C-alpha cells in the first residue's frame, strides 16, 4: 500500500456546512481520506455521521445551497475535483467513478424501461469523440446484464423496474455501475434494503465482479460484518471526521479508538454471550458540536485535553492511524501531508 504508488483518491481537510433554518450544520469537520488503486476500502459509522455527504462531495453532487465547502481539497487521480470544469467533471462521473445506491427502487426511474436507462448510461459515459451505434450500445447492455447473472437479459431490457424484485433491481444497478468500467466504485449500503439471503448473493456478485474488473471500491455501510467480509482496509467515521483507519483484520482484532471499540463490541454475535451495553449518548447536534474531540461527551476515557483540542492523527504504524489523545504518549503526530492516512 505504501509502495510509492500514486493515490487514486485523496481528500484533505474537507469541511462541509449546511445552512439551515436556525443555524449552520457543521456536518463534515476536516475529513482526511486516502486510497490507492485496487484497494477495497470500507467506510463505517452511525447514521448521520457524514458518510454519504463525503461521497457526494467527491462526485460534486452536493446541492449548494444549502451545502457549502469552506475548505478542503479532493484529488482524483491527481486532478483537483474542486476545480474541474463541468465537462471534465462529467467525464469523471462517467468513466472514473460509479456509484451504487442503497435503495435500488429509488435509484431506477420507474417510467423508463431498464433498457432505456441502461443504454443512456452507456451512451453518455462513452469517452468524448467515441460514438457508439445503437447496435453496440444494445450489445453492451446485454453483456452487462449477463455479467450480473440475470437470466433472459433480452426480456429484462424491455421490462420496467416495477416488474423486478428488489434483488434483481440491485443487480441491474450493479450492472449499470460497472458497464462503463469505472476506476472507482462507490457502493452506498448496497445490501441494506435486501433480505439477508439476497444480500449475501448481491455482495458475492459484487465481490466477484470487482475482482474481475480490478475496480477499486469504497463500501459505505453500518453493518460491520459486511465490511469484514468485503474490504481490505477500513475507515471509521464519527460525527464528521475520520477517527481511525487500519487494515480490516487488524481493526477487528485490535480496535484502538474508543468509538471503534464501542461499535465493534455492540454487534450481537452468533456465538451468543448477550448484547453489550452500547455507547452512551447519541450523535451530537451539528449546529453546536462539542468542542475539541467530538466524541468526548460519549467517551469512557475522556481527558481534559479532549475537551479543548481536536486530536490529530497518531500514526500507530504505517497502516494504522488513530485520531485520539490516548495514543499521544507513544506515537508522534504525523505531519507529513503526503503519507497521511487520516
Amino acid at each position, binding site marked *: 500500500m505504501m509502495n510509492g504508488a500514486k493515490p487514486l483518491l485523496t481528500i484533505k481537510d474537507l469541511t462541509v456546512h449546511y445552512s439551515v433554518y436556525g443555524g449552520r450544520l457543521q456536518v463534515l469537520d476536516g475529513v482526511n481520506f486516502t486510497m490507492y488503486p485496487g484497494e477495497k476500502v470500507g467506510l463505517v459509522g*452511525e*447514521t448521520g455521521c457524514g458518510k454519504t455527504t463525503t461521497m457526494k462531495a467527491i462526485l460534486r453532487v452536493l446541492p449548494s445551497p444549502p451545502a457549502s465547502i469552506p475548505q478542503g481539497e479532493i484529488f482524483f487521480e491527481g486532478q483537483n475535483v474542486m476545480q474541474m470544469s463541468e465537462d471534465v467533471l462529467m467525464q469523471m462521473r462517467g468513466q472514473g467513478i460509479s456509484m451504487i445506491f442503497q435503495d435500488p427502487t429509488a435509484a431506477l426511474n420507474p417510467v423508463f424501461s431498464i433498457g432505456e436507462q441502461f443504454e443512456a448510461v452507456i451512451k453518455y459515459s462513452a469517452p468524448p469523440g467515441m460514438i457508439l451505434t445503437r447496435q453496440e450500445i444494445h450489445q453492451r447492455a446485454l453483456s452487462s446484464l449477463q455479467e450480473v447473472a440475470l437470466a433472459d437479459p433480452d426480456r429484462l431490457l424491455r421490462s420496467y423496474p416495477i416488474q423486478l*424484485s428488489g*434483488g*434483481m433491481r440491485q443487480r441491474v444497478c450493479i450492472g449499470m455501475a460497472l458497464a462503463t468500467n469505472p476506476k472507482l466504485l462507490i457502493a452506498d449500503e448496497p445490501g441494506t434494503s435486501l*433480505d*439477508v*439471503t*439476497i*444480500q*449475501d*448473493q448481491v*455482495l458475492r456478485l459484487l465481490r466477484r465482479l470487482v475482482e474481475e474488473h480490478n475496480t477499486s471500491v469504497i463500501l459505505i455501510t*453500518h*453493518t*460491520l*460484518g*459486511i465490511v*469484514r*467480509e468485503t474490504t481490505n482496509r477500513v475507515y471509521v467515521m464519527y460525527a464528521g471526521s475520520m477517527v481511525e483507519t487500519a487494515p480490516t483484520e487488524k481493526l*477487528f482484532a485490535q480496535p484502538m479508538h474508543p468509538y471503534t471499540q*464501542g*461499535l*465493534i463490541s*455492540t*454487534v*450481537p*454475535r*452468533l*456465538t*451468543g*454471550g*448477550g*448484547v*453489550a*451495553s*452500547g*455507547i452512551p449518548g*447519541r450523535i451530537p447536534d451539528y449546529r453546536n458540536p462539542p468542542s475539541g474531540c467530538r466524541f468526548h461527551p460519549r467517551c469512557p476515557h475522556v481527558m481534559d485535553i479532549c475537551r479543548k483540542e481536536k486530536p490529530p492523527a497518531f500514526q500507530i504504524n504505517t497502516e494504522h492511524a488513530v485520531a485520539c489523545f490516548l495514543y499521544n504518549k507513544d506515537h508522534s503526530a504525523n505531519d507529513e501531508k503526503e503519507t497521511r492516512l487520516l
Partner: protein
Amino acid sequence: MTEDILTVSHLKKHFVIGYTGQFKERKPITVKAVDGASFSIQEGETLGLVGESGSGKSTVAYITIGMYLPTSGNIRFREHELFQGNGKRPRHLQKEIQIVYQDPGSSLNPRQNIKQILEMPLRIHKPAKNQLEQIVYLLEIVGLPPEFMYKYPRMLSGGEKQIVSIARALSTEPSLVILDEPTSALDVSVQAKTINLLLELQKEFKLSYLFITHDLSLMRNVSTRVAIMYLGKICEVAETADFFRNPLHPYTQMLLSSIPVVTKEEEELKPKKVVSTGEIPSPVNVPPGCSFHTRCPFVMDICKQVDPVMAEAGPNHSVRCHLFPQPALAGSKSP
C-alpha cells in the same frame, strides 16, 4: 414444564387481492400470507420468529394482536380462545397482548405529545385519578426523564421514539408483548441499548415476548427458542443454543450461511455447504409440495409433490423437511 401462554395452531390468513375470470369462472386471486403456521410461546420466554420479508411474520403478529381475523385456524391465549364468536376481543384480553411496531417514526402520532400518547391506553384500560403519576412511572421504568411528557415525537431520536413505543405497550400491564422488528430501523449502538432495556423489563415484569426479526445474530442473544418461517409456514423450531449448533432445515442453513459476521469464531459456526441461491417465490403462486424446493440444494422428487409436516428431530427440536423421518401418519402434528 412451564405453561404455554400462546398457542397458535394451523393459522391461515389469505388476502384476496383481485379476481380472475368472469361470471361463473370468477375466482379470487389470493396471497397466502400465512398458510398453516403452528407454534407456541411458553410463559416468560422469548420466542424468536425469523424469516425473510414476505414470509408472513408480521401478519402473524397482526392476527395475534387482533388487527386481522384469521382465514382459518385459531390462537389460544392461556385458557381463552382469541377468535371465538364474532371475533370481537374482550377488553381484558386486549390489555394482555400489546405490540411494538417496526418503524417508530410512523407508529407514534406526530400531533400528540408523549403524555397524550401514553394517556390513551391508560384511560381505556386503567382509568384512575392519578394518571399523571402513572405516566411519570411509565417513563421512569423505561429510563426516560419526566420532562419527556411534553415533547413531540419529531423532537426525539429514533431510539427514543422506540423507547416511547415500548412504554406505550407496557402501559396496560400486558403479559405478552409482540416485538415486530423493534430495532431494525436503529443503529447498532442504539439497538444494543434498546435490547438491554427490553431484557430488563422482561425480567422485572415477567413478560413473554414474541420477537419478530430477520437478524439471526440478534436472535442468538435474546431469544429462548427460535422459529423459522418461510412462505407462511414454520419450517424449524428449536431451542436457541441447539438451533445454532445444529441447524437442520436447508433453509435455516442457507440463512445462517448468509449472515455477515465480525469474528473468526462466528465464521466457524456458519454452515459452509449451503450457499444462498434464488429468491423467495411470490406468495400468490406458492410452489407445490414443500414451498422451499425451488431453492433447496438437497431437493428430491418427493419434495415437489408432498408437503412435509413438522416432525420431532431431537429433544425440543422440530423440523419440517423430507430429509428427516416423517411421522407415520401424515396428519396434524403440531410442534
